């Protein structure tokens, strides 16, 4: 069942990439990033049984990935609130102070 899990995670990751590249709303961007992180976690868990199952390394890293995702969500949502106050919206196209 490892290979189907890998294929599934690949498909989910591609969906996440698609969302990141095409959505303009900051919150939706965050949603897409979460999808990509879950795809990665599926990969980690699937390989956990293949490589050194006794050490549980894959599962540990999936857990750590979830923790990182929590951090990312907290900071990201705080940023979205700050951006909304500053720019009056969550449309990332309007955030272009770096425009050359």
């Amino acid at each position, binding site marked *: 069942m490892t290979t189907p899990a890998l294929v599934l995670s690949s498909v989910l990751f591609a969906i996440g*990439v698609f969302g*990141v*590249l095409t959505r*303009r709303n900051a919150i939706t961007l965050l949603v897409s990033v979460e999808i990509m992180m879950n795809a990665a976690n599926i990969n980690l868990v699937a390989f956990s049984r293949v490589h050194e199952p006794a050490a549980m390394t894959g599962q540990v890293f999936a857990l750590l990935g979830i923790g990182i995702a929590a951090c990312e969500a907290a900071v990201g949502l705080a940023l979205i609130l700050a951006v909304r106050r500053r720019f009056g919206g969550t449309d*990332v*196209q309007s*955030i*272009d*102070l*770096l*425009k*050359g």
Partner: protein
Amino acid sequence: MSVVLVAIFAVPLLVCAALFVGAAVASRRGEIPTRGWGRLAGWISSAGALTSLVLAVTALLSYRAGVDVSVSAVWFHVGDLEVPFSLRLDGLQAVMAVVVAAVAFLVHLYSVGYMHGDRDVSVYFAELSLFTAAMLLLVLSSNFFLLYVAWELVGASSYLLISFYFERPAAAAAGKKAFLTTRVGDLGLLIALFAIVWQTGSLDYDAVFAWAATPGFQGAWAVAIPLLVFAGAVGKSAQFPLHVWLPDAMEGPTPVSALIHAATMVAAGVYLVARAYPLFEAAPVSLDVVAYIGAFTALMSATVAVTQSDIKKVLAYSTISQLGFMMAALGAGAPEAGVFHLFTHAWFKALLFLGAGSVIHATGRQTVQELGGLVRTMPVTAWTFAVGGLALAGIPPFAGFWSKEEVLGSLLAHQPVLAAALLVASFLTAVYIGRLFFLVFLGGPRLAGDVRARGHESPWVMALPLLVLATASLVSGFFGAGFLGQRLQHFLSIGAAGAEPPGTPAWFTALAIAVGVAGLGAAWLGYGRSSQRAGEALGFDIQLRSTLGRAYGVVERAYLVNEFYGRMVVGPLVAAGRFLWLGVDGRVIDRAVDGLARVVPGLGGLVRRVQSGEVRDYLAAVAFGVIFLVALALGGLR
């Protein structure tokens, strides 16, 4: 080993630095320079010059006593060339140092009175001290490199002092002209120094002169090096064809003219030829060039001096003429006679200039048409001026007679034609100095009702230098007089030893005296006799003008040399400069730069669109990168 020689030039240099710092601090604080401060600056720099004089006399006495006072230290290395900072003293240098320091001291003293109430007096004294230091370094140095450094330093300070009244366009232009014209000659000297280093690897006097005495010194270089050195002397000593700057240099303050453009700096060219005499001796052709140019200059500028109406211009052309006498003597193989004339000339020409300055200071006028009868109101100035004039005219027993007799005698022995030319120049010398004296000091005021032009006697700080210089003009000739054994000439001992100059025939001495007296007599007939009545004295000038016609005008305008240079040298240079400015710089370089300046923002504008500032565009770029890297990794796995 002794520090006396260093101290001689270091003292005025320190004075100069102190005065410049003082002036800078004062102007930074926004203080307006007061008269008291200027007077103090004058006294400080006079004290500095007096210290130099005392030290120079001390050095001369210890040299006579046989003490070695030379100083040498390594200055820097360039490749194989080691340039030392070395000073030394021989007879020539000792005499020059004393003359320079003495005249400098008297001029400093005189300037305290003359510049009284002028603006920026402390800067004036700083520049005067700088000149004094540079000139003393010039005569004390013991190698050509140091000499060249000092040579340019005196040129720079001369520039500063000529242009001292820089708000007057004429003064600014005169300073520029003096600097640029002398630079033409300096280039020759510089090339000569390059050639010397190239040939010998040393710039030390003794080493170079030893090389000049060897058989290896021959061919093209043996002729070229003395002539190039002489080019430097021609520029500095205002000899034809580079004499044009000296009359213009009269725009500077009159004490400056006395010190720099009569007594010392212009004599530096004569000193240089005398100093480098072994080089000239090795190439007799170069000596002939020196003699002919000197004699030609002497005769030509004597004729010009007769026609000038500005007191200082007369004296300027007189200086050029007298420097020509010195050069002629050097060229005739009698360097001692030339330096002897330099020695006496320094005193009496400084005296004449300071006397003229006294007149200008008192009356505010400096053309002979406006002056007259000053002997009654300015007796000290008048009588000291008379002493200087008699010395210049070559009337015994004044100093000029003895030295001029030596010069003429040496020329008679070697170049009789030139001796005749110089006799004519002597006659003209007596004429123009007599004319100047009669017109300025005798007769009555030319302009009725001009109260200031009647003049008044100058303060003691100005009178004292006049009296001292008058005394020197009277007695300095005896140092080298033939009947007293030519002690100065033996002390100098330039050139090949044992070349005792032949005595001057008695008939020639008598002829020389007669020429001087005749010149003064002619001046009396033309200008002195009738000058009691206003306006009539200049009648002789008008007569001359009508008799000679256009030729008089040509002489009055100094044979149109300035006009010739303007047409042939300055005009084309200015035209070339304008072409390079408007044509090349404006059309080609500016446009290229402007075009480049337009191209760069254009390219930048194309590239800046990449930086959209939108995070998703950057993410897309990252995705492209990921695809590329993944493809690379998978391709690598296969």
